[in-house]
């Protein structure tokens, strides 16, 4: 039986930059030869999926248009990725059967609160993203997402001085809460720090395997 395509879950509060992170990291992975599909759980619209499709598929041609799928979740974003991920799993499996050439599938959760986590049946690797504009207290406040994710991403670092957030405090607290597990500072608007996120994915999800297209 063929190995299943690795799945990366991206969760985080509303407006923290989940869609932007995916829009930034997919081109970095693409430049390394890796092909990704995207399933976007939007709470009330298809806007995120439509934007990613337009940006990454239609304009940049980095993936086929049917590789960006939007999914409505009845207003229950955390249920859709944890308690009952069945509709997401169905989408993932359909995408996988249509596109066995994929190196990974990224599943974006709908914007939710800090208790978001992904079912291990849905995602093999879980990225949780917060932004500095929520205050530098975020890592310290903990919450399942921040505590248990495989990679914590802290976005919008350019805003720190404007919102009175201290990145040093966030770094210290992230280390205190997460021990040795990684975190990354990024600015998804400029792409700063996104290569670090891509490197984590290549190392910890893809185990440094070459892209399928190159491996033949």
């Amino acid at each position, binding site marked *: 039986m063929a190995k299943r395509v690795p799945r990366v879950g991206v969760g985080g509060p509303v407006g923290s930059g989940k869609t932007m992170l995916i829009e930034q990291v997919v081109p970095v992975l693409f430049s390394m030869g890796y092909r990704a599909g995207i399933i976007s759980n939007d*709470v*009330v*619209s*298809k*806007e995120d999926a439509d934007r990613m499709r337009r940006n990454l598929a239609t304009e940049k041609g980095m993936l086929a248009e049917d590789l960006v799928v939007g*999914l*409505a*979740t*009845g*207003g*229950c974003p955390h*249920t*859709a990725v944890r*308690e*009952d*991920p*069945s*509709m997401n*799993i*169905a989408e993932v499996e359909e995408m996988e059967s249509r596109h066995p050439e994929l190196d990974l599938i990224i599943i974006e959760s709908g914007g939710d609160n800090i208790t978001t986590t992904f079912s291990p049946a849905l995602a093999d690797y879980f990225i949780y993203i917060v932004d500095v504009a929520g205050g530098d207290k975020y890592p310290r406040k903990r919450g399942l997402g921040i505590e248990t994710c495989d990679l914590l991403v802290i976005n919008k670092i350019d805003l720190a001085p404007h919102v009175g957030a201290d990145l040093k405090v966030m770094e210290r607290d992230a280390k205190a809460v997460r021990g040795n597990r990684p975190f990354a500072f990024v600015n998804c608007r400029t792409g700063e720090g996104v290569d670090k996120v891509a490197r984590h994915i290549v190392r910890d999800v893809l185990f440094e395997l070459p892209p399928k297209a190159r491996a033949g």
Partner: protein
Amino acid sequence: MSTEFLSMLQLADSFFPAGTYTMSNGLEALSKRKKVKADELQVLVRTHLERQVGPADCCTLGAAYESAKAGDIEGIIRADQALYAAKLVEEVRNASARSGANLVRCVAAFSNDALLAEYAKAVNEKRATGMHPVALGVACAALGIPKHEAGAMFLYSFCVGMAGAALRLGVIDHVAAQKMLHELGPAITAAVKENVDKPLDLMWQFAPAIDITQMEHEQLDSKMFIT
């Protein structure tokens, strides 16, 4: 108390992961078009029971259940394909197939029933679609749940789904939702009695206003539910 009774509670529980919480069955589109009042909601759900999920889904569930009891996989697949063909609205058709496929795979993980496994295999190999009522009928037969109870579980869960969607859409509150579920009891039992023993070729549905609303949902730009 029997383990079959507990299996019934398990499959009818909204905790059971079949993805039905993502469906409003057209209610989202209707509530965008007009303000739906609590009493209108109940009329709408009754119409579903009497003209759509009762005569179509519940009848098919009964036929699939009988086929499962007879060990007739071809009969199950025939019921599956008939209901798939009868569902006019693509969103609704696909949602039913997905949630049923989820259901049958999940039950296959804890039941050793050979026929259920065969149906799950047919769904995986795309020889069957996994329509929800068929999947539930086969699962109930496998777990020893009586047919009329299986029909009641399906229709009650449908009503819970409608109530849950209405609650999230702001149509009713939590107490009104429970009141509605209680008041729908006689309509649910009547729909089961009328439909679950019928042969597959007497399956029907006729609710054009509901079909149109469900089609309208397909065209919405902003939506919270998949149907």
